[in-house]
Each structure stands twice: as C-alpha cells, then as structure tokens.
C-alpha cells in the first residue's frame, strides 16, 4: 500500500511515521510537502503530529488551508483512508472532516507519557484487532476534545468514538482522563469510517525497542482494511 505523509512547516512526527511505515511495515511512502497539490498516487494519507505553523491562531487552523489540504479533503470525501495523529487530528477537525475541536488541556500542561486506551469500537477499518485495551503515548498541550451537546450525542449514537482514555482495566474514569476530553475521547472517526483522528501517537510504539508495539496494530488494520 502506498502511504502519503504530509509535511507542514512545523510538523515534527513526520519522520517517525515515515520510518514506521517504510522500515517496520515495509510499505511504500511518499513524502508530501504541504505546498503540493498532487498526492502522487497515495492510497492512505497520514497527517502527522507536530506544531504546524507554530500553532499560531489555533492548532491546525492555518495548516488546514495549505494547498495540499484541498486534495486531502477530496481524497477523504471519496472514501479513501486518512489518519490524523495529534496535530493531524487537530487539522482534520479544523478542516471539518471530523466534528468538534481540541482545546487546551485542563491542566494547562503539555503532557507526554504513555496512556491506556479502551478501544471503544472494535472492528472498524482502524481497529481490526482483538485487543480491547491498548497502550500508546500521548504528547500534547491541546488535546482536550470538545463538542457541543448535540455533536457529542451524535458521536455516541453513531458509535464514532474509537478510542477513550481508560484505566488499566479498560474502565473509563475521570482519573484516567489526562486532558479533560469530553467522554474521555482520544480518537474518533467519521461516519463513512475512512477518516480517523487520534491524539495518541501509534508511530511512537510500533517496535519493541520503543517499549511497545500496540501502535502497529492500527497501521496493520489500515493495511488489512484498505489494501487492494
């Protein structure tokens, strides 16, 4: 499968994503500069983490209008896969490909540590694996998921919440919520099931040397679901 990793000015997890996809999963990877419009035949688009445009104005707000985003939006609307990680999730929300917004952590602190996630919805194109609880690191200052009452209800009713911050037993508790996200939301997908946004970084735990391999499950799930 050919992946396209978009690089914005200020992206800083792009090389980690490229490394995992290219060297761990042995897939073809196209590096896409944000000023391009051509996705170069990429089948799955990855919007990586970082601080695109220095987070000026709002996280993801300026990146969302980079030239390549028109092509990414068209790619997503045609049902092909897009995954936004951390800043990538923020960009997807700003672009309207996912509902809601990510605001400042309730602690006001930048949090960088592994967290436990409940796979709130198994069997999606991004969660075709038997594990119901995974451990993946977060690294963000603005990962506090917000949506208005109706929007939140919609996510719940349609089962679009994919990952939730949980304790080690997989229970959703306030103590396990690192940033104040409503419903402990760590990741959501769109209704068509081809766009995933998540704050945790699967590319940071896809090899045993990195202390965990749960992140790899998500990339492998994309391969299984969207190849061919």
């Amino acid at each position, binding site marked *: 499968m050919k992946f396209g990793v978009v690089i914005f000015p200020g992206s800083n997890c792009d090389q980690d994503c490229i490394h995992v996809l290219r060297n761990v999963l042995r897939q073809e990877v196209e590096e896409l500069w944000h000023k391009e419009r051509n996705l170069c035949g990429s089948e799955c688009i990855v919007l990586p983490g970082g601080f695109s445009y220095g987070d000026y*104005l*709002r996280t993801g*707000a*300026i990146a969302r*209008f980079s030239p390549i985003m028109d092509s990414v939006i068209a790619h997503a609307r045609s049902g092909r896969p897009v995954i936004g990680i951390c800043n990538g999730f923020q960009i997807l*929300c*700003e672009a309207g490909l996912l*509902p*809601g*917004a990510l*605001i*400042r*952590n*309730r*602690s*006001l602190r930048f949090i960088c540590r592994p967290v436990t996630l409940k796979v709130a919805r198994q069997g999606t194109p991004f969660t075709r694996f038997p594990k119901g609880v995974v451990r993946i690191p977060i690294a963000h200052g603005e990962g*506090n998921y*917000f*949506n*208005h009452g109706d*929007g939140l209800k919609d996510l719940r009713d349609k089962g679009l919440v994919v990952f939730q911050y949980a304790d080690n037993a997989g229970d959703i508790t306030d103590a396990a919520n690192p940033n*104040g996200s409503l419903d402990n939301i760590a990741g959501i997908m769109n209704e068509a099931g081809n766009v995933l946004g998540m704050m945790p970084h699967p590319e940071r735990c896809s090899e045993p040397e990195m202390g965990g391999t749960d992140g790899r499950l998500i990339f492998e799930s994309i391969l299984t679901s969207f190849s061919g």
Partner: protein
Amino acid sequence: MKAKVHVQLKRDVSDPRGFAIRGSLESLAFQGVNKVHVGKYFVLDMDDMPEEKARVMLKAMCEKLLANPVIESYDFTIEKD
C-alpha cells in the same frame, strides 16, 4: 480603515487559562474577580471601502479563519481613519 476583531471561547467551553489567571489574581489579593475569559484581539489595517462591504468581508474572515465557530464567538468594530 481599521477593523478590530475580538474572538473568545464560547461560554460553555471550559477555559483553563482564564481559570488559572483568576486564581493568580486572587493570590495577588485582587478580590472580587469571579471569572476571567481569555480571548484574542486582532487589529486589521484595511483598504478603505464601504462599511457594508467591510462587514461582509470581516464576517467571512471570522467564520473561515479567525474564529472556530465550534468553540469561539466573535465580534468586530470598524473604524474609519
């Protein structure tokens, strides 16, 4: 002409920065501040144009880029030089 745009978090969105600032004011013995809302303030130097045209343009700017309507509200004023 100049346009002055205020953007702030909607009232139902938690504002941890405002909360922290309120706490700090209290610790500095400034009593009676019940809530602090932190916003953004933009000053736009613009070409002169009819006010109605500027209003339409500013509204579009706010809704497209300067504010995120999911979490923020905005208002603006226009000043002729």
